[in-house]
């Protein structure tokens, strides 16, 4: 232990002694660490934004959805008897924070200037304060969505149909029995776009959705379950437990299928059953079509990190080669007064690791600072990127775990980069080293 401390002291003194080199190499390590922190923060930020936007707009952390088939070929995305089903879920999931019911439908929204196909979401706005917070209302009053036959549309949709608050639109669809029906709605609010989901989603009161699809009051589209924060990352076992509880309660449950409900229509329509089947999904299932953005972003981050680390390793190795060359006589002297080969190697390893640790700490502080500045600056995301990132400004999330990971990774990589030069230095014979000139 004492020897270790002595070696550590010598290593630190060496770093101080060769101040210029230490500053140069330490800065490079700090920059790499900072970039690593920022890339991780970007990836985490996008993931957080995606979860937040999506779980507010169109999915819970867990969902109980399903299909009711009047005939084998006629499937409606509805959950019958939802209050009893919610009761089962509440018993099965103590991890549940709260749950909301959302109507689901697909219809044509028609105005004087045109039309678009839309996923119609039924919402009880009074019961969803988080929804109100998640949306940035451009015009109108979101609370008016509590009134029957009102609709919330997004900026791009309003622009396409030249809609203003108070304008009338007709929503045209078929009931679950395939009968044509319409409702006339007044635009209550226009919200700013929040990515891909706002391209096709619109919101109307649950009661209006029930009128459109001729649904009974005990029928809804899906039960969206929000979990307490500590359970959000552990969805698979909770989904499995919920599925099994529903089955035990006598409900028919669909096989796990990691796709959003609207991608399951064809599969469900091909099957011969009729009546109700429930479906348990996670937010990742419901947003499976968006998850590739996270995967792609993570992939790009990993590639960039590998390149940066490779550059850093090359720099450290080169610098140590030079240092060893410069300090060959010093190594010879140390070996001559009795320092073992292992201690010499350890000395250089400690020097590099200490450099990595210091550079890493500085890099993390820099990264966190830059991330805070970027968040404060509310840098706008280009429109095309908004589609997938589901945010209109760049959000970077620096998490303590990611910070620790960055410091440990950089320290270990710095040490690893020094391994070969250190072993080479340790292999020098004292006589040769002391007679070295250069």
């Amino acid at each position: 232990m004492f020897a270790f401390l002595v070696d550590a002291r010598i290593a630190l003194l060496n770093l101080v002694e060769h101040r210029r080199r230490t500053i140069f190499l330490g800065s490079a390590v700090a920059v790499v660490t900072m970039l690593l922190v920022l890339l991780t923060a970007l990836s985490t930020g996008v993931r957080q934004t995606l979860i937040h936007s999506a779980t507010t707009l169109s999915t819970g952390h867990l969902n109980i959805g399903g299909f009711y088939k009047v005939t084998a070929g006629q499937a409606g995305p509805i959950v019958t008897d939802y209050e009893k089903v919610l009761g089962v879920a509440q018993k099965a999931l103590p991890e549940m924070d709260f749950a909301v019911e959302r109507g689901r439908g697909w219809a044509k929204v028609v105005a004087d200037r045109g039309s678009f196909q839309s996923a119609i979401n039924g919402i009880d706005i009074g019961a969803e304060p988080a929804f109100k917070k998640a949306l940035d209302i451009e015009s109108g009053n979101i609370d008016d969505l509590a009134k029957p036959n009102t609709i919330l549309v997004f900026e791009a949709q309003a622009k396409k149909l030249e809609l203003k608050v108070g304008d009338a639109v007709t929503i045209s669809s078929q009931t679950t029995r395939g009968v044509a029906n319409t409702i006339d709605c007044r635009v209550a609010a226009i919200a700013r776009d929040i990515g891909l989901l706002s391209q096709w989603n619109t919101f109307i009161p649950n009661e209006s959705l029930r009128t459109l699809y001729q649904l009974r009051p005990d029928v809804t589209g899906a039960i969206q379950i929000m979990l307490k924060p500590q359970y959000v990352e552990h969805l698979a076992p909770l989904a499995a437990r919920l599925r099994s509880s529903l089955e035990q309660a006598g409900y028919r449950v669909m096989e796990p299928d990691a796709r959003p409900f609207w991608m399951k229509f064809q599969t469900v329509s091909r099957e011969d059953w009729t009546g109700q089947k429930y479906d348990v999904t996670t937010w990742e299932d419901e947003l499976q079509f968006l998850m590739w953005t996270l995967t792609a972003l993570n992939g790009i981050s990993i590639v960039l990190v590998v390149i940066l680390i490779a550059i850093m390793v090359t720099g450290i190795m080169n610098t140590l080669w030079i240092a060893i060359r410069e300090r060959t006589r010093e190594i010879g002297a140390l070996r001559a007064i009795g320092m073992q080969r292992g201690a010499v190697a350890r000395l250089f390893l400690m020097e590099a690791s200490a450099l990595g640790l210091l550079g890493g700490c500085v890099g993390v502080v820099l990264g966190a600072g830059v991330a805070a500045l970027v968040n404060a600056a509310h840098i706008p995301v280009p429109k095309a990127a908004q589609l997938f990132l589901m945010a209109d400004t760049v959000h970077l999330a620096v998490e303590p775990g990611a910070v620790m990971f960055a410091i440990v990774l950089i320290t270990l990589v710095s040490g690893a980069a020094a391994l070969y030069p250190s072993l080479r230095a340790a292999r020098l014979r004292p006589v040769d080293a002391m007679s070295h000139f250069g």
Partner: protein
Amino acid sequence: MKKNRLVAALFLLVTTAVLGPLRSNIAVAAATKQEMVDLLKGVDDRQKNQGDWKSGVYIEQKEKGKVAVVYDALVFRRSADQKFMILFQKPKASEGQGYLRVDKNLWFYDPAVGKWERRTERERIGGTNSRRSDFDESRLAEEYDPEDAGTEKLGAYDAQVMNLKGKAGLDLAFPVIKLWVDRDTKNVLKRQEFALSGRLLRTSYYPKWKKIFSESKKADIWYPQEIRFYDEVEKENSTLILIQTVDLHSLEPNLFTKAWLESKSR
């Protein structure tokens, strides 16, 4: 006594004068209801082939701000078991696609994916504003209860107007229909379809009717050569159907099968 007789005679006279026409009106109204049912049956019967049917149809869908979609298709029907099939021939992208009704299910086949998809019977054919029922045998009397809505002059034609309400328990695309029928020929001249909410969704015109002799029926049958649908929700959208050829000869027994439809795109 004499006075009493006079009062009784007066009462009888008044009763006859007041209730007589009313009674005759009730009789007329009842007859009108039956007449409407008979008229609706007549509309169906005129078009019923009671055998096999093959027609070549042209479908054109115009939508605001979009390029017109045009299809050439063959429609096959068999009255005996209500078989129905559509095979698209043009455009190239839709060649080999088709709809087949098996029992109460309508199936759609796309050779590009090689899969059958079960669709609702009230599916918009090829994404146009036409439905399966627009190409199928007329079954208005089976599906709707008619009510007299008076008469109207529709161009040169005297039309009987009827309000049709979907019969309970039947899943119909349009729960309410208003129908204009030529009083002379019993051909449909105009039709308006309404949503459950009462909103007018589609107005159809049947400007040309043609007759053809049916061996299986041993009589002439009538079919609309041209049908024009106007979307009443999206006012600028319209669909045109032209029935260009009709062949009433017997079709192959195994025609109404998935295998047959699949074979057409191999």
